[in-house]
């Protein structure tokens, strides 16, 4: 079987595993949608709020399906010795990682599509104003947070620590990056931190693409792209099989 076919087999295997893991399915799919529905139901009459919420939840979903899922998942795979087992087989490294990452990437895309659909069909938000830009920012966001997730897994010492490590990043980040409310409402210190990190900029880009508002798309792309490069370098440099 060619390396590409092996990557495809690994991807299919990862998909099967994903749906058998109820907590992964919950945190990747159910939780962001739950936030969307609850908050939109509370403030649904306010179009401005929906214009902030929809791109915000989309950005949060990219974060959850790539960064959190991979940082957590790779730590478990490494600590359980599954990476070491893979290393002892003829499955090429890139085939394995491609299959593994592609599964996370698919989750991110599915989730962004679901959010746009729910926003339009349930809450009457207009279709995205710039679909190519939406695609571009989703790709960029996925590259950024997937590589940062792989890199972050290297810093997590063991399985027991994984939920604490990932949530210590995930929860503060979504609250300061303008997922639920406009970032302008935050104190200057928190705003400065959010501006240095990639999630706020991903949400700016998604916001431009979905509702045609928010921060400058060029700046957003530059910051997310820079983090993506850093993430890829760190992910490769410190990769551990065991």
């Amino acid at each position, binding site marked *: *079987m060619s390396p590409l076919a*092996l990557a495809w*087999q690994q991807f299919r*295997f990862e998909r*099967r*595993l994903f749906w*058998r*893991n109820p907590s992964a399915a919950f945190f990747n799919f159910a939780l962001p949608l739950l936030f969307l529905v609850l908050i939109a139901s509370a403030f649904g009459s306010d179009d401005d709020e929906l214009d902030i919420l929809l791109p915000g939840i989309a950005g949060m979903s990219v974060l959850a399906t790539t960064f959190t899922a991979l940082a957590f998942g790779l730590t478990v795979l490494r600590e*359980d*010795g*599954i990476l*070491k*087992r893979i*290393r*002892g*087989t*003829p*499955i*090429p490294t890139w085939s394995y990682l491609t299959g593994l990452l592609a599964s996370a990437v698919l989750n991110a895309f599915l989730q962004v599509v679901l959010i746009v659909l729910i926003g339009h069909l349930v809450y009457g938000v207009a279709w995205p104003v710039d679909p190519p830009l939406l695609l571009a920012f989703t790709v960029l966001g996925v590259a950024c947070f997937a590589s940062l997730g792989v890199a972050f897994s290297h810093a997590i010492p063991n399985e027991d620590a994984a939920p604490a490590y990932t949530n210590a990043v995930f929860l503060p980040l979504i609250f300061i990056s303008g997922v639920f409310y406009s970032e302008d409402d935050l104190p200057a210190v928190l705003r400065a931190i959010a501006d240095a990190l990639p999630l706020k900029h991903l949400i700016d880009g998604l916001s431009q693409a979905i509702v045609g508002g928010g921060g400058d798309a060029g700046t957003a792309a530059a910051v997310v792209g820079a983090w993506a490069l850093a993430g890829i370098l760190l992910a490769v440099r410190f990769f551990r*099989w*065991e």
Partner: protein
Amino acid sequence: MSELAIEVSNLHKSYGSLEAVRGVSFDVRRGEVFGLLGPNGAGKTTTVEILEGYRRRSAGEVWVLGHDPEVRDRGQQQRVGIVLQSCGFYPRVTVREAVEHFAKAYPRARDPAGTIALVGLEEKAEARTKDLSGGQRRRLDLALALIGDPELVFLDEPTTGFDPAARRTAWGVVRRLKDLGKTVLLTTHYLDEAQALADRVAIVKDGRIVAEGPPDQLGHGRSRYRVAYFSNGRRVEHQTDDPTELLHRLTRDALARGERLDGLEVTRPTLEEVYLHLTADADSV
């Protein structure tokens, strides 16, 4: 094709100031079952993991099926099967799914169902791996190592944690591998396992090989024959390098006294005695 499946010469491995392997040399012939025997921490696993390509050596030369294992090579990995000492499974897949998944990585994979049967897991084929017992997980390790129909199989303590029946099954599998012409490198700290399975054994202690040879010849020239009998209800024991002469003298004297040497026995040292003797010697060096 070389007659040797594995060639190791003057292998060294250090972790910082700790020297785990200090100049190990041995060869494994094709079709041979070779046992690395030694206590925990002797350097067996480090040695095997260098051969498997998991670790880089500090010094020495290593050839596995004619390849340097430090150079990762897909063709090479397709010819080798590995049972690691501890290594996990995807918890939410069944035994059959795991075996079928890994089968895809090999060009000439064995039949998955037949391989599951070979290791005696057919009744658990539809069980998820997280529901397997320790011994069953080890058998799945073995099935995954064999699924690619490898020429060379590394078994790092393959029966640790097995109940006696499972050990017999595993031993049967190793013997069948040998019958099929496979080369097996086995590490174990069970003496009876080395004795039962290995054509040749190297005893490893503190990162060095302290003895090497077929298990039944290992004690030659090192440990002596033991001659024991009962005299007036008390056990008398002699050690000798020349049991013929000693027996002649003992029986001649006994006959002269009109005494029977009850329970007379001449025993060669067991591998266990050789092992304990050698590892004790290494301690005092």
